């Protein structure tokens, strides 16, 4: 009892002090609780943003890419005994998925024909099948069944025999909903969906194997971020159990997607925690700063207790209780507030109670408690008076060691290198960097400020006002140092947050432009409909580069063929990507004009004709290849010729209006299967003529065209010729000359083929790994089945729009590669994309740079990060201002006696006011200057922090730290203005009181 009383007395004493100082107690609770609440708020923000992000991301995915799919085979004559097990397994995820869909596809029911008709049965055709034409089938009855054609070409109304005595009438054409069957080849060439199995049909299908696919798509509205890990684990275990239990069962779930989403959420939460942690540290530092003003009182209390007989432990208990009681209360209130806020948010969004646990995980709670405890500890230490004139002590040593460690770690591990960070993630030391920088700044200022003030006093001896200002500041160096430190830390934090935010915004801008490469980009089938005028045709292919080390290996590369003259228009380019400028690259990629083009058909040409004969072993088929306006190819067969002259005709379809003739093929109609056969002979052609409205007109001669070189090196010979005893006097003769690729095409400006190649050297820009494989500046690229020698004209680290394997690529001029690949084989490589740099938005756009940027910015995680950063920045600036005002007020209040004495000595109040204002300005300037330096250093850190973007992906292009000049200038200007205002206002108030009152106090 005695011990309890002895321990309880200092606690009761502390409690009494807290009660009699409600305002300051409230301020302590608010600041320490606020700091803890910032942590909790960041966690809540992250959790909320992650919920939105998961929902949005899953909703963007096609159902098939977010479905749990279990596929198994049935083998006749066994029944479908796996159905209950599989259905139960899938049903077990009913809390996170939509309805279960089950499709059974019997393998071909046509004997000896694996590509024959397949019967498909869906549990719920009305939701699993979309009818594009006709209607859904009704039930089968007896020998007649209705069916919907899922594949094949049977028209509606046709009848398809399904077996003896069973016929299916096709009543519609349609398709399965996306995602029901991942492998569409399961449907074969003719798949018929029936509503049900009649006994006869059942008997038929019972003899055949089947594939059963059970799917359930994850419902974006029911999958929650806080349970992603749990869902993923359940899916993983279920898949493993199903597959292990039966070799004919295969299951698939979007585990990778869930893992990525979880990772994104963790990264975002971590980053928000860092930012909120910095803000919380600032709030705690603010409280500690205020506590320094109460050092004298704290020391007094200590002496009072000691004189009354308290031991050191009891004194410590009293001081600790006075600080930690508000810390505990504040932390508890913060926890409660965040929990309530999470409940409200969850309820508003219709989220289950698990959201609260997700918003306040145990880790966050621990951090919040740690902040409260650390804040209390810092306050406890801050209240201990310290002689700032003391020697170099443990504090300074630890600060120097910490700073040295950070600098060494960052410089040797590349923790500040964006590329390095993008590869390896953010090093832990970087996360600690801001806090340690602030700590080091504080310690440094504690040393530097008093010396600076004393120096200023010495230098200002000839100017009494200046001297007085520095003198007064130097009298309480600890106070000045504390005010300076806090201002520096506050401004540094504000600038760091603002720059961080600006960098994230800029990164979204750059990332969108880099990813898209143009204002709009069309891909896929829509490209076929583009008539390239404003839009630029682009080919995006995959190729292989033969490696020299190790020899024989191949490096897979992305091949981007873009018109060289448009390279200077490409969005997302940075000069740092390559040494040569873009203009130089464009010139080098297209040193001479290369273009696959030929005689153009008139728009009103309706018939083509040509006199032809062939003196060959077998008749030859004359086929014309045309290049269309959309950079596609079309063929027109004129017919076969042989020994006698024959006038070949063909109707020119409207689709060939304006098309250009780019190849003439002399196809063999027969090819004997013999190694000894060498095709020989020649084919004569007159001039091609087109019939227009105005009559027949000849197309330009193709005498200057080039024959292709076959892979075996053989090539025909084409030359102009005169014909005797022929219906035409002049034309061209093509000697087969043993070639099995009898095709002629315009020269197109292509370089002559390199030895061993069908194609000549093409200029290319390559990435560094590709360039490293070059020998004498040449690499061999195999693309679209052709070996293409490339002459490297430059190296680049990155190129816009190449985001998959971004470091392995080659860039070639579009016309050059197009001609090189298609001249010999028209249609081998066609544009895969259309890039628009100007003009109105095309109707069908796959990628829109503005929309991409908007998506990045609006991503909930990025938005959450920006929100936290804005709050942190504003809070830091506001605390800086408040700290400045309070420091000024406190300093002048503590100097009332001194100021009164000066006035008694005859110094005018106006001079004292000016000296006080100057003093405030000097101290603030040091703090602001240190804060700006801190902000500059913070810019170095920003890249590392933003290394994984707001959307937690690997950033392309690499992050470039941005200084938010307008906002930073605004904050700095506001603080400077606040300095002036505080100095004027507070000094005026402090000196308003009569000197006698100050002397009396």
């Amino acid at each position, binding site marked *: 009892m005695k011990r309890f009383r002895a321990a309880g*007395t200092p606690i009761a004493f502390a409690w009494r002090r807290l009660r009699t100082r409600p305002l300051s107690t409230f301020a302590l609770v608010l600041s320490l609780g606020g700091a803890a609440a910032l942590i909790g708020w960041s966690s809540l923000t992250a959790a909320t943003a992650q919920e939105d992000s998961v929902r949005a991301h899953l909703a963007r995915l096609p159902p098939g890419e977010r479905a749990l799919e279990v596929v198994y085979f049935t083998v006749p004559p066994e029944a479908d005994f796996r159905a209950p097990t599989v259905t139960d397994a899938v049903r077990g995820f009913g809390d996170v998925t939509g309805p279960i869909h089950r499709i059974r596809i019997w393998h071909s029911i046509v004997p000896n024909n694996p590509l024959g008709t397949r019967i498909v049965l869906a549990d719920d055709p009305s939701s699993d099948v979309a009818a594009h034409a006709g209607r859904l089938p009704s039930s089968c009855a007896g020998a007649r069944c209705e069916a919907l054609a899922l594949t094949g070409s049977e028209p509606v109304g046709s009848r398809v025999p399904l077996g003896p005595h069973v016929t299916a009438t096709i009543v519609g054409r349609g398709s399965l909903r996306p995602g029901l069957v991942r492998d569409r080849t399961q449907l074969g060439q003719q798949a018929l969906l029936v509503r049900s199995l009649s006994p006869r049909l059942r008997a038929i299908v019972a003899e055949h194997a089947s594939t059963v696919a059970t799917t359930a798509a994850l419902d974006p509205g029911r999958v929650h971020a806080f349970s992603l890990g749990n869902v993923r684990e359940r899916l993983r275990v279920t898949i493993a159990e199903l597959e292990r239990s039966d070799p004919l069962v295969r299951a698939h779930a979007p585990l990778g997607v869930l893992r990525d989403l979880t990772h994104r959420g963790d990264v975002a939460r971590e980053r928000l925690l860092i930012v909120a942690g910095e803000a919380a540290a600032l709030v705690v530092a603010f409280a500690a700063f205020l506590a320094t003003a109460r050092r004298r009182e704290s020391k007094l209390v200590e002496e*009072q207790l000691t004189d009354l*007989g308290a031991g050191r432990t009891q004194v410590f208990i009293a001081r600790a209780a006075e600080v930690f009681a508000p810390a505990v209360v504040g932390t508890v209130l913060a926890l409660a507030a965040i929990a309530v806020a999470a409940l409200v948010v969850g309820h508003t969004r219709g989220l289950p109670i698990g959201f609260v646990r997700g918003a306040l995980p145990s880790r966050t709670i621990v951090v919040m408690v740690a902040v409260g405890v650390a804040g209390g500890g810092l306050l406890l230490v801050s209240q201990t008076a310290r002689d700032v004139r003391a020697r170099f002590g443990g504090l300074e040593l630890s600060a120097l060691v910490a700073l040295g460690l950070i600098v060494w770690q960052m410089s040797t591990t590349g923790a500040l290198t964006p590329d390095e960070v993008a590869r390896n993630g953010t090093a832990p030391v970087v996360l600690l960097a801001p806090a340690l920088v602030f700590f080091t700044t504080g310690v440094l200022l504690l040393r530097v400020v008093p010396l600076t003030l*004393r120096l200023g006093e010495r230098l200002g001896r000839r100017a009494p006002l200046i001297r007085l200002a520095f003198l007064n500041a130097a*009298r309480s160096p600890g106070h000045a140092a504390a005010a300076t430190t806090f201002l520096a830390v506050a401004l540094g934090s504000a600038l760091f947050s603002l720059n961080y935010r600006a960098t994230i915004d800029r990164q979204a801008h750059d990332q969108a432009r880099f990813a898209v490469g143009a204002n709009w980009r069309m891909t896929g089938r829509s490209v076929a409909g583009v008539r390239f005028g404003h839009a630029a045709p682009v080919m995006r292919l995959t190729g292989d580069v033969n490696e020299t080390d190790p020899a024989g290996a191949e490096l897979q590369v992305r091949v981007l063929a873009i018109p060289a003259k448009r390279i200077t228009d490409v969005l997302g380019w940075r000069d740092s990507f390559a040494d040569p400028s873009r203009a130089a690259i464009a010139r080098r990629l297209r040193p001479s004009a290369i273009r696959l083009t030929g005689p153009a058909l008139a728009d009103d040409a309706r018939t083509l004709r040509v006199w032809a004969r062939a003196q060959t072993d077998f008749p030859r088929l004359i086929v014309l290849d045309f290049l269309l306006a959309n950079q596609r190819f079309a063929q027109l067969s004129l017919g076969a010729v042989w020994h006698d002259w024959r006038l070949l005709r063909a109707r020119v379809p409207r689709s060939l209006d304006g098309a250009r003739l780019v190849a003439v093929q002399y196809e063999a109609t027969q090819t004997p299967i013999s190694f000894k056969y060498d095709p020989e002979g020649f084919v004569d052609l007159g001039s091609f003529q087109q019939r227009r409205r105005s009559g027949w007109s000849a197309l330009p001669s193709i005498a200057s065209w080039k024959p292709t070189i076959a892979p075996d090196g053989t090539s025909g010979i084409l030359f102009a010729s005169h014909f005797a005893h022929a219906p035409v006097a002049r034309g061209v003769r093509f000697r087969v000359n043993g070639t099995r690729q009898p095709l002629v095409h315009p020269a197109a400006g292509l370089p002559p083929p390199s030895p061993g190649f069908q194609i000549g050297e093409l200029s290319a820009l390559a990435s560094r790994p590709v360039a490293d494989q070059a020998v004498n500046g040449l690499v061999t690229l195999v693309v679209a089945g052709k070996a293409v020698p490339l002459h490297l004209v430059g190296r680049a680290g990155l190129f816009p729009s190449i985001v998959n394997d971004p470091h392995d690529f080659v860039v070639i001029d579009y016309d050059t590669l197009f001609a090189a690949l298609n001249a010999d084989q028209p249609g081998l490589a066609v544009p895969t994309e259309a890039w628009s740099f100007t003009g109105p938005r095309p109707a069908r756009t796959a990628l829109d740079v503005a929309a991409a940027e908007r998506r990045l910015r609006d991503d909930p995680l990025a938005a959450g990060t920006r929100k936290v950063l804005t709050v942190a920045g504003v809070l830091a600036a506001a605390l800086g201002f408040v700290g400045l005002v309070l420091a000024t007020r406190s300093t002048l209040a503590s100097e009332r006696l001194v100021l*009164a004495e000066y006035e*008694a000595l005859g110094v005018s*109040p106006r001079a004292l006011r000016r000296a006080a204002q100057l003093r405030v300005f000097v101290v603030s300037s040091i703090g602001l200057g240190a804060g700006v330096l801190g902000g500059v250093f913070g810019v170095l850190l920003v890249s590392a922090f933003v290394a994984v973007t707001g959307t937690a992906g690997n950033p392309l292009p690499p992050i470039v730290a941005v200084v938010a000049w307008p906002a930073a200038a605004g904050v700095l200007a506001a603080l400077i203005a606040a300095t002036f205002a505080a100095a004027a206002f507070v000094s005026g108030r402090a000196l308003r009181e009569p000197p006698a009152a100050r002397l009396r106090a």
Partner: protein
Amino acid sequence: MSAVRADDLFHLYRQAHGDVAALRGLSLEVAAGESVAVLGPSGSGKTTLLALCAGFARPSSGSLNVLGSAFGAISGRELSRVRRTSIGIVRQHYHLSLPHDLSVAEIVGMPLRLLGRSDPARVTALLRAAGLVERARARPAELSGGEQQRVAVCAALAKRPRLLLADEPTGELDAAATRTVVSLLLELTREAGAAALIVTHDPTVAAACARTIHIRDGRLAAEGTTRPVLIVDEQGWLRLPRAVREEAGVGERVRAQATWGKVELLAERPTRASVPERRLEPQEKRGTEIALDRVTKSYGKREQSVVSGVSWTFAPERLHVIAGPSGSGKTTLLNLQAALDRPDDGQVWVGGERVDSLDGDEAARFRRRVLGYVSQHSTLVDFLSARENVELALTLRGFDEIEARRRADRWLEWVGLDKLGDRRADRLSGGEQRRISLARALAPGPRVLLADEPTAHLDRLSGRMIIRLLESAAREGGTTIVAASHDPDLVAAADECLVLDAGS
């Protein structure tokens, strides 16, 4: 067993500019139950001795045995235990010593509760002895200075310590309160059977104690009060008090002549402080220097009248003292004369100029032109030297550097600190700092010097030196000096004295 036994005690303070020896071989013994008054000039080591006896610091060398424990050797925990259980402490600044959040009864009972005990009867008995039973629930802010100090004494003795340490317990009290507090302190100490070691400048306190010792320069220099016996230490050194030296006009060198039982010291070159140039021409003085005409001043929300209808004149070239108990308005009158405040009613004339209605800048100009001011709190800039502090005041008043340096040197010499001119202010004793303040105030050559409690917090010797300087400045320097004080020595030295009662 002795309560305190110190043998050849040394103690060094570590400061930024070097180590300072506060005690230099002090030897002392205090018997159990004995009350000992400790006198000595500021900086002599009195407070350090108390701090060592309380266990707040450890001796640098020598031995110190307090209540049977060797304070230089025991662990910190044991030391703290001895202090908590057996030592009571009373400090000078009662308004800082008492927790303002607790009531009187709670403060007195606190030492018992900190020991895990509860004894309301004991608390009541103490309060009754102190005459504060009815004020048991009051907070310290509601009590007078004397009442607060009585509370502090009761709290210190509540746990019946075996040793009481008191540092200037009556330093901030008037005479009546001093008597009450001393009486209570010694009574309760006797009742508790405790020894008492009381640092004081007050001869009243010294007279009430069983024994008086004098400490000087960190050593025991003398014992007794009326005719202190000077101590010759083991090395044979004898220290002459400054007062004795100055009375004899002894400077830096003396010749000693020894006969059996007697040593005569003959001054080689007697020194005499010289007053710097006279500022005032006789024809400038016209009768009254300062006049107060029905001056009234009130403070606080309740408009408590501090001075009411005071009319007085102060003749020029005189040393005037405004005396009275605490709260009688001494400082208020001084501040009104200095135009640091305005009266609610009445007029104030200084040097033929009415000053009661000047605005801030006009008042500052007036003070620059006419006044010098010395407050009781030293506000010297501690990292500047003595000379720099004086120069600073002169430059702030508009003197150029050269003139400021010249005047600073002259006035430092006048106050006897010319050899300490380059020493940092924080390395000077309290008395020396007060002399610097005086030099700073007089260096510009004001007609009038106002001094608020110029001898407060100084030991008697230092205080007497200040008084002599004030006398010299008034009578020889021609400065009209008005000092507010309750120091009887200063009152005795004054040419004229205005005695205030509370509120009049």
